[in-house]
């Protein structure tokens, strides 16, 4: 019964959602609305679960002094600072998101610079990786290289300065061959998605039960 009940719940719920797509009227439409609200509530609780798991994992790391435990201290302190700032701002301004709140101050001067910097570093590594990896070793690599160069130059203003047709060629590559390949991949992924979903609904795929 431990396995049968969750499988039955999965099957019945998914059937309701599918049927309600085709029959939006009561009772299916109402059942779908209720299911969607439950989903949203559970999604909120999973965030709490995620936070609890994160704190627990890093607390254990600190307790056992595993490699890199100092960074776990930084994480927990950072977490605590933001929780305190958010709580104080919530009481003072009615919301932590007020422009003048300490929470937003921390967000603007800690989170934004840190996250932006992390992403910005990618440009350096991409430049270095492109230099090392883009070698015309065979026909496929040469075609990739030529296409990449055309798109890289065509998608920036300097491409238009070099030759006025560069942007149009780059746009053609994006809109036709690239789009065609992407659509093929998208359809493949969607078919795989449908297959996996059917397997889960019918109880063939049970890995989510652990």
């Amino acid at each position: 019964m431990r396995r049968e009940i969750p499988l039955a719940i999965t099957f019945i719920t998914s059937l309701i959602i599918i049927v309600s797509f085709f029959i939006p009227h009561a009772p299916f439409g109402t059942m779908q609305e209720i299911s969607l609200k439950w989903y949203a509530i559970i999604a909120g609780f999973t965030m709490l679960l995620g936070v609890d798991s994160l704190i627990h994992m890093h607390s254990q790391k600190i307790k056992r002094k595993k490699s890199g435990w100092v960074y776990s201290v930084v994480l927990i302190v950072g977490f605590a600072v933001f929780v305190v700032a958010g709580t104080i701002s919530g009481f003072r301004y009615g919301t932590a998101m007020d422009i003048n709140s300490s929470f937003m101050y921390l967000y603007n001067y800690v989170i934004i610079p840190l996250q932006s910097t992390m992403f910005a570093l990618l440009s350096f590594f991409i430049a270095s990786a492109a230099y090392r990896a883009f070698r015309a070793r065979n026909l496929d690599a040469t075609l990739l290289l030529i296409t990449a160069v055309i798109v890289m130059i065509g998608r920036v203003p300097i491409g238009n300065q070099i030759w006025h047709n560069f942007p149009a060629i780059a746009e053609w590559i994006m809109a036709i061959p690239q789009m065609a390949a992407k659509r093929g991949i998208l359809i493949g992924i969607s078919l795989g998605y449908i297959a996996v979903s059917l397997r889960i609904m019918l109880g063939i795929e049970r890995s989510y039960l652990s």
Partner: protein
Amino acid sequence: MNIFERIEKIDRRIIFLLVAIAVLLPLIFKVRMEIPISEPVKKAFVSVDTLSSGTYILISVDYDPASMPELQPMYKTLLMQCFEKGLKPVMIVQWPLGLPLSIKAMSEMAVEYNRIASKEGKDTVVYGVDYCNIGYRPGGVAQIVGIGKEIRDYFESDYKGTPLDSLPMMKDIHNYDNFALLFCLEAGSMGEMYVQYANARFGIKIIFGMTAVSAPDAYPYLQSGQIIGLLGGLQGAAEYETLMKKPGFATMGMTAQSWVHVLIVLFILLGNIGYFIGRKKRRS
């Protein structure tokens, strides 16, 4: 090591240094280049520009500070366009870290527009009357489907906790049918969810503003008409600024990006020259 071996194996620190110089110089000296306009961006701009005053537009802010340099300029330019055209933007957020960004830009652009409007003797914009931000709620896809019926099922209040019914502009707004357009600013896959559920089930017109990395994924939707416009990366933002005749951060940033792209192409060419000559020598 001869010269060709050297150019095949340039120290990465030299590459990093040159990339840094290529980025910094145009930004320091505020060098601007002419921005050519692409068809997908033009379609997006015209779709918003041809809306009549008082029309509601839903803007989904789904990015975090990592994607802010590319998407925030799009968002700010779009807000300015909405205020100038008298449109009523309603912001919704699907990424928790995107909420402060959406509030920050919304407040900045409202202040800037009101400064210009006061000078020109036009009406200023007021929160709750001309624009609002209903904030973030967990739920993702469930929420996207749910607000197709009634927004208040998931968003009873705005980001400040003010009930939606207390906001004058939200009194008669209930679902996608009340919006002319959904403008999605995406750093991830929420845009695809909007296409699959909001557009496919409820028929709302969608425009994407995406990071340069994600923009190629949206071309199938553009070609099929599931989205009616696409802004890709900083270039898309710069094109939108050019169409609005308000060049800003994105326009300046494209000069830096141009120089870096040319630098990368030069390094690729150098690497290949070194590789081919080195390979010829190794074979002989």
